[in-house]
């Protein structure tokens, strides 16, 4: 379900302290998303591509991660140029595509791909556990962090319970079709999954209570800032500042 296929590798980017990666992933993504001109996102795209290259990830996997966002972009390209107000650039079957619309679609495409690349390079290179711990150390709300970590732990258990139920149905010759019996079976399945999840949550809580849990969850992490991390903080801050600079000063 969550394979974390990019997390357990070794590269310069993988070795950066997860806190640094998380903070800069957020900063750079927000700066990319909010900038209004082409210059800043293009600079960010360069930066993101550089980070992906440095993290030595298999290019095929990275490309696969870009597919869903670009399918979405395709729809944007189909609609935006023809609906946006502006100078007509060309006509297809009597429909005029506006110059501004094309520019906007291009800008959104660059931004979306840049953000995905930033996340791939900086966030998907750490395990979910490391992500949770980094968030905890950065004073993210505690409940959110625990929600993330516990979800990560139990999503697999729920998945296997779901498969178990589906198997049980199949073993008794259940073949889904478009009829009431199928809908009923699926709703029973979903209901059963909820019931099971609830009772599991209760048992897990009991087990936690039995080990002295009193509401405060202590994270055991071993993040240590190394010299190289400071260098990375410097490099990434520089990029961030350059982006902001280009964004404010830069020409359209």
């Amino acid at each position, binding site marked *: 379900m969550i394979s974390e296929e990019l997390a357990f590798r070794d590269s310069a980017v993988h070795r950066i302290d997860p806190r640094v990666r998380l903070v800069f992933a957020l900063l750079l993504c927000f700066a990319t998303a909010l900038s209004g001109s082409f210059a800043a996102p293009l600079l960010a795209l360069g930066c993101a591509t550089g980070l992906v290259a440095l993290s030595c990830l298999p290019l095929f996997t990275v490309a696969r991660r870009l597919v869903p966002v670009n399918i979405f972009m395709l729809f944007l390209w189909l609609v935006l140029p023809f609906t946006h107000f502006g100078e007509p650039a060309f006509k297809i079957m009597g429909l005029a595509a506006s110059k501004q619309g094309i520019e906007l679609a291009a800008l959104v495409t660059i931004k979306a791909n840049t953000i995905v690349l930033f996340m791939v390079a900086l966030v998907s290179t750490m*395990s*979910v*556990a490391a992500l*949770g711990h980094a968030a905890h150390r950065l004073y993210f709300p505690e409940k959110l962090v625990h929600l993330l*970590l*516990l979800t*990560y*732990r*139990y999503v*697999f*258990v729920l998945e296997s319970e779901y498969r178990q139920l589906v198997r049980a149905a199949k073993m008794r010759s259940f073949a889904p079709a478009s009829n009431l019996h199928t809908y009923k079976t699926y709703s029973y399945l979903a209901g059963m999954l909820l019931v099971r999840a609830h009772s*599991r949550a209760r*048992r*897990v809580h*009991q*087990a*936690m*209570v*039995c*080990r*002295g*849990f*009193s509401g405060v969850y*202590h*994270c*055991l992490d*071993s993040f240590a800032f190394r010299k190289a991390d400071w260098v990375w903080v410097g490099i990434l801050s520089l990029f961030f500042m350059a982006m902001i600079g280009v964004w404010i000063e830069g020409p359209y």
Partner: protein
Amino acid sequence: MQPLIELKNICFSYPSGRKVLENINLEIYQGKKVGLIGSNGSGKTTLLHVIMGLLPATSGQIFLFGEEMLKEKNFAKARRRIGFVFQNADDQLFSPTVLEDVAFGPLNLGKTKEQARQIAQSTLEGLGLLALKDRVAYRLSGGEKRMVALATVLAMDPDILILDEPTTGLDDATSHRITHLLESIDKTCLIVSHEYEFLSQTTEVFYGMESGLLKYLGDSSALHTHIHIHPAGALPHKH
């Protein structure tokens, strides 16, 4: 000497009215290893949950370490000294990594991160599980999960161990490992199982449970099971 666990006339019934435990009296003294045997649905797990305060007894008194358990606060204090291993290890292991899970108890007991890490490491090492320390809990095998669940409890250095069906569903090798560990461990234990042979190896005295009633069955060494035609054939008994 004061018993570590003392139950007086404990009854438990579910809100639906179904009676699960009836007038249970039990005393467990320091250093004793007590076995509890019974068939499925006889109320063994319910009894353990009542002792731990996870289910409220309908009537009767519970004394843990000489103190009467009146409120959740009393139980919370007592639980710090009791190691409870659940039937299903997936319920017990909730942290992303094994090391963290084992360190969870010590951290709750107020140990510092460094101490907790040390304790977790040495506990895992003592059980021969150190190689698993950075593994993700869901990727462990059933046997490994059970061993790690034991480690999470042992790391808290409890005065008494309570184990709910510790060998159910395990292969012979892991089963032997756990049997051996429980034989050699120097702690007061309450072990619940429906496997007679396992209990006779790991405990000294025996209780039997049947439809909510607890019965003292005697010394483990004096008991036997065999296949023959009489009502107690499946349960350990004396002639």
